[in-house]
C-alpha cells in the first residue's frame, strides 16, 4: 500500500517532501548536536558540518536533475529496497535513503547497532515533512549476523543495498547467494596535487582544501584521503608542503572542526603508524594530526583520525600506477583543478580503477548525483 501511495505521488511532490525533510533534519541536528556527537564519536562542530554539507545537497534542483536522469534511461524503479547501513559515517544514510524515496521506492533501513540516532532523526523528519514519505522508510536494528532477521530484511525487498566492510558484505553474499545485492564495500581514497597546486599563488588554496578533506569526519570515511600524492621529486619541496599542511591547514582547522577524542584502539594503531612513518621517512605531527612523509610504496594504511601520508610522484601517470593496486577499493581521487582532466583520462585508461575524480576540498561532500563505486547513484534501483 505504501508503495502505491509513494509512487502515486508526483515527482514534484516527492521532491518537495524530501527537500523539506532535509531542512527539518538540519534544524534538528543544529538544535542538539551534542547527542549526535555522543553517538557518532565526532565533535559537535563536526556533526554540524557533516549535517550541513550533506543535507544541503538535498535541494530541489538537484533532486529534479536526478529524476530527469533516471527518466532518460526509460527504466522503471524497483518495487522496494532494503538498506544495510555501515556505522562509520552518520551522514552516509542520506544519499542511500533519499535517492530511492525520490524514485518512489519504499525502503527498510537496517541501521548500524553503533549508530541509530541519526537514522531515527532522519525518519522522524521524513514523517514530519509528509506522512506518506515517512511511512515509506521503515527503520530496524539488530545485531550483525542475526540470520533470521537478516533473511527477512533481504527477502522482504526486491533488492538490498549493503554498505559495510568487505567481510560484512562477503558474509551477506554467502548467506544470500540468490539475493539481488547492491554492494558498497570497503573503500579508500587519495589526493593528488599537481605542479599547479604547488605554485605560490595556488598553494594556500591547495592546503586549505586538503586540510578539509583530511579533517572531515576525522578521516573515518571511505572518501577520506589516506595518501596525498604530490608531484615533486624534491625532498625539500615535499617537506615544506607537509609543514604548510600542518601549520596552515590542519592546525587552524582543528580549532574550527575539532577532532574527537581518540579511541584507545585507534591510538594504538596511530602510535604504530606514526612510529613506522618516522622510521621509513619523517613525520610532522601535532596534537591532533600526523603527516607521514615517505615514498609512495610500500603503502602503510593510516588509522584515520587525521593521519595522512604525503608521497612524492613524478606526475599523474606515476600516481595512477601507485593507485592501481587498490583496484575497485579506491573510491575517490581528489585533485587540483589543473590536474583533474589528465587524472580522469589516466584513470579511464586503467583497467583496474573506477574511482571518481573530484576537486580537492570536496572529497567528503559529494553531490547528490555523484557516482558511487564508478556507477550512477541510482544503480540497482531501476529495472
Amino acid at each position, binding site marked *: 500500500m505504501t508503495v502505491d501511495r509513494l509512487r502515486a505521488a508526483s515527482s514534484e511532490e516527492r521532491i518537495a517532501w524530501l527537500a523539506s525533510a532535509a531542512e527539518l533534519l538540519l534544524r534538528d541536528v543544529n538544535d542538539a548536536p551534542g547527542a549526535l556527537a555522543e553517538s557518532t564519536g565526532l565533535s559537535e562542530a563536526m556533526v554540524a558540518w557533516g549535517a550541513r554539507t550533506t543535507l544541503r545537497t538535498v535541494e530541489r534542483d538537484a533532486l529534479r536533475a536526478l529524476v530527469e536522469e533516471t527518466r532518460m534511461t526509460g527504466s522503471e524503479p524497483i518495487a522496494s529496497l532494503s538498506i544495510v547501513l555501515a556505522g562509520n559515517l552518520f551522514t552516509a544514510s542520506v544519499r542511500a535513503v533519499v535517492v530511492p524515496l525520490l524514485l518512489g521506492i519504499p525502503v527498510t533501513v537496517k541501521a548500524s547497532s553503533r549508530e541509530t540516532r541519526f537514522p531515527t532523526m532522519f525518519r522522524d523528519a521524513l514523517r514530519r515533512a509528509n506522512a506518506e514519505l515517512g511511512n515509506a522508510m521503515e527503520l530496524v536494528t539488530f545485531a550483525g549476523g542475526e540470520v533470521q532477521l537478516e533473511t527477512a530484511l533481504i527477502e522482504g525487498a526486491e533488492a538490498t543495498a549493503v554498505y559495510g566492510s568487505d567481510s560484512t558484505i562477503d558474509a551477506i553474499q554467502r548467506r544470500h547467494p540468490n539475493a539481488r545485492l547492491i554492494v558498497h564495500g570497503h573503500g579508500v581514497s587519495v589526493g593528488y596535487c599537481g605542479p599547479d597546486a604547488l605554485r605560490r599563488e595556488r598553494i594556500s588554496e591547495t592546503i586549505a582544501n586538503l586540510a578539509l578533506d583530511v579533517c572531515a569526519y576525522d578521516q573515518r570515511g571511505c572518501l577520506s584521503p589516506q595518501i596525498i600524492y604530490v608531484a615533486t621529486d624534491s625532498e625539500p619541496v615535499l617537506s615544506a608542503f607537509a609543514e604548510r599542511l600542518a601549520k596552515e591547514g590542519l592546525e587552524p582547522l582543528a580549532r574550527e572542526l575539532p577532532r574527537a577524542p*581518540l579511541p*584507545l*584502539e*585507534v*591510538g*594504538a*594503531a*596511530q*602510535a*604504530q*603508524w*606514526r*612510529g*613506522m612513518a*618516522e*622510521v621509513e621517512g*619523517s*613525520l610532522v605531527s601535532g*596534537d*591532533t594530526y600526523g603527516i607521514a612523509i615517505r615514498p609512495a610504496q610500500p603503502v602503510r594504511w593510516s*588509522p584515520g583520525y587525521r593521519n595522512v601520508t604525503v608521497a612524492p610522484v613524478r606526475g599523474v601517470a606515476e600516481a595512477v600506477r601507485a593507485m592501481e593496486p587498490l583496484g575497485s577499493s579506491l573510491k575517490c581521487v581528489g585533485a587540483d583543478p589543473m590536474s583533474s582532466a589528465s587524472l580522469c583520462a589516466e584513470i579511464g585508461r586503467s583497467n583496474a580503477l573506477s574511482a571518481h575524480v573530484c576537486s580537492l576540498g570536496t572529497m567528503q561532500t559529494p553531490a547528490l548525483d555523484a557516482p558511487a563505486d564508478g556507477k550512477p547513484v541510482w544503480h540497482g534501483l531501476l529495472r
Partner: protein
Amino acid sequence: MIDRAALATRIETMIAAFGHGEPADTSARDALIDDLAAWQAERIPEYGRLQRRGQWPPALPTDVFRFRRIASHPEERDIRVFRSSGTTSTDRSVHVYSDLSLYDLAARVAARRMLFPDVDSIRLVILAPPEDEAMDSSLDYMLARFAEWFGSTSTWVWRDGALDLDAMTIVLRQAEDAAEPVALLGTSFAFVHAEDGLGERWFELPPRSRVMQTGGYKGRSREVDADLLLSSIGARYGVPAAFIINEFGATELSSQMYETTLQETISGRTRPRRLWVPPWVRATPVDPDSLLPVEGDTVGLLRIDDCANLDSVCCIQTADLARRLDDGIVVLGRAKGATPRGCSLAVDQALGSP
C-alpha cells in the same frame, strides 16, 4: 663515552643484584635506560630517527620489528633469531641476538622470583614444542632454559605438532602418585585445547603445583574469558587460583613480567592480581596521542623499557592496553585493530583451529 661492554656490565650487575636480594633502584634503572637508548640511537638508524617526546627517550613501535631488522650488530653476528607467530613474513616480528646471556639472566632471575620462589627444582610439564622443533620461538627457548634451571624432570607433551593428551595424562598421574608438585607451563591456547580434549580426565595435582600460562588469543580461534580460563584450569588440575599465573612476554622483549599471586601467597601476602615488573624494566601506560605517561590508573598504551634489550632497542611501544594497579601493571589485551600476533598463534595453527 658509553661502550657496549660497560652497558652490559651495568645491566648484568643490576639484574644479578636483584637476584641476590638487593633492593631495586629505580633511579639507576632510569639512568641506564637513558644511556642505553642514547647508545642504541647512534647505532640503529631506525631508532635514531624517532623523535623524543617529553623527558624519556622515544619508544620504538613493535610494528617496526615486523618490517626491519633492529640490531646494533651486523647480521653475521646473529646467534639466534626469534620470530613472533604469524602467517606471513610481515605478520611476524623478528628479534635478533648476538648474545643471549642477558636474556638468560633476566629470564632466570624473574622466574626464580615469581614462578619458582619456593622450590629449587620441580617436575615440569610443558605444553609447547621442544626447542629443537621451534628454534625461532622465544617462548620455547625460555621453556627449554627453565627445564635446565628448574626442572627436576621435564616432559614436553607436544608431539608431531600437536598436544599429546595421553602423554600429558600419564605424567600428571605420575605426579599425583608420587605426591610431587608439578609446574604446568604453556600458552593460553594450549590450555584451552587441553581443556577441550581432556574430557573426563580430571586431576588433583599435589600441593604447590602451579600453572604458568602465556599469550593471548590473537583473534584467530576460540577465545576464553581470562577468569573462566583461570577457573577451568583450577578445576581441571586441582590447582588453587593463586598458583595459576600469567606470564607476559613478547618477541621484542628480553624480559618477562609475571602475575603476582603465587609469589605473594607464598610470602604470606594477599594483594590484587597484577603483573610484577622486574626492577630492570620500566612498564608505563602512555597516552595514545602524546605518548607521555598517563596519570594514576588511566588506561593507556603499554610502553616497556627493558634494559635486557641491549643489542636491539630498549624502549618499546606496544599496542597493548594497560593500566597501573598498585605497584604493578594490568594488561587489558591488544587494542582491537592493532596487529594480532604472539606466540600462542603458532600453537593454535598447529592444532588446526579455525
